[in-house]
């Protein structure tokens, strides 16, 4: 579903992605972790072209992103993205946040879209909040609405960029539960997170990225038990310490 081949990305002189090779198969859940500033966000944002790549090859759902003929809006409709800061539309209710794109892009009628939105809100446990504006929702609730909004386009791939990092600790669980559910339903997912419990329990593979390079990639059991790279050992010590 997603294939990086020798991908490079620069911000001016800054070499943010350095020869990234990664393959995510259909139905796989891949967790990406790494220190702050290592390029995790940039990596995941290249997949729906929020950041274009400079070199290499990136193929998503059979579309080669370096091909100028690729319809970028069509690609994005197939790829859901969940942001650290939720980015719900503050002027619209939860329901309208969810129905906007299906109505405009998928050509759904208002009624179809609303029925689907209510179903999705029920799935994330927020059916009774459909008429609430984002400002009336807690962080955890906003993030669940944001997930529902992404799912409304029936994407083939879901991307999450630190979906729980902006949340109060007591709200992290409710968002992770929704994500676990989604993973178990067979969704192809790529998740940037430091929630190692989620990685261990749900993911098929974990990648460690540092200075824009994937230093280590392994199944979760192996990843946590036998980290090979010195940098990863240090990193795991930090994120798994009781202080976190």
């Amino acid at each position: 579903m997603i294939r990086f081949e020798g991908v490079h990305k620069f911000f001016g002189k800054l070499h943010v992605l350095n020869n990234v090779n990664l393959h995510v198969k259909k139905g796989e859940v891949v967790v990406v972790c790494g220190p702050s500033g290592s390029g995790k966000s940039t990596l995941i944002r290249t997949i729906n072209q929020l950041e274009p790549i400079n070199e290499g090859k990136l193929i998503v759902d059979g579309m080669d992103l370096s091909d100028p003929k690729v319809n970028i809006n069509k690609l994005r409709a197939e790829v859901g993205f969940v942001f650290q800061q939720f980015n719900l539309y503050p002027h619209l209710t939860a329901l309208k946040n969810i129905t906007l794109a299906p109505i405009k892009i998928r050509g759904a009628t208002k009624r179809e879209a609303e029925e689907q939105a209510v179903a999705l809100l029920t799935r994330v446990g927020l059916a009774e909040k459909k008429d609430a504006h984002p400002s009336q929702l807690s962080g955890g609730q906003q993030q669940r609405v944001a997930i529902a909004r992404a799912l409304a386009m029936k994407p083939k791939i879901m991307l999450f960029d630190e979906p729980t990092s902006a949340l109060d600790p007591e709200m992290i669980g409710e968002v992770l539960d929704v994500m676990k559910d989604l993973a178990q339903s067979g969704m192809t997912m790529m998740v940037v997170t430091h929630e190692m419990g989620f990685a261990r329990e749900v993911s098929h593979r974990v990648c460690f990225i540092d200075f824009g390079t994937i230093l280590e990639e392994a199944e979760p059991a192996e990843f946590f038990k036998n980290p090979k790279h010195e940098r990863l050992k240090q990193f795991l010590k930090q994120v798994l310490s009781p202080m976190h």
Partner: protein
Amino acid sequence: MGLDFHVIWDNLTYFFIGRYPHGPLGGVALTFYLAVVSCILSFFGGMFLGLLAISRNRVIRYASEAVIQIVRGMPLLMVIFWMYFLYPALMGRAMPESQTVILALTFFTSAYMSQIVKAGIEGIPKGQTEAAISTGLTHRHTMIYVILPQALRNMIPSFVNQFVSLIKDTSLAFIVGVSELTHVATQINNRSLIYPTEIFLFIAVVYFIFCYAFTTLSRWLEKRLAWAKAI
């Protein structure tokens, strides 16, 4: 020195509607007309110029930016004169004075409004655009349904400032002989000669009421649209 407001009372219809219905509309009514029409037109003019100024096409962006900067560098009076003298010369036919003034006010105010529009749009966090295009929405959809509704609400206070200036700027129409409130006032003053204080005090109050009413209206509107604080 006592003030004698008889002169206002005696000329009240003239102050409010000019020579209408026997002649053209004038006075307060014409001021109101000039202000409202120019407001509406410059709202759209400002939106248009502002959207051009953030276009992803560089040529369009620079061209609109140039127009905006040039207009902002001119006194309004000069824009009115330009319209007044140049329009007939260029188009080969004259235009009613009030239309000249509306055109000038619209042109002038649009340039300022466009800056408000531009800043308003740029002030919406980037995450909003990213979220919208990530669901597959086009840039146009994103602008119409996500960015503009939020930006317009944030722009209301600046819009109001601009419109209040515009209401007051309509008084410059008197220079090309449009019989709006200030023009009517100078006429009555020239006729009666001894009541300038009363006359100009009166029109000051009228302008104030206009502007104050408008500001109040916009505050109400802003509150109604305050979804961010809605509970």
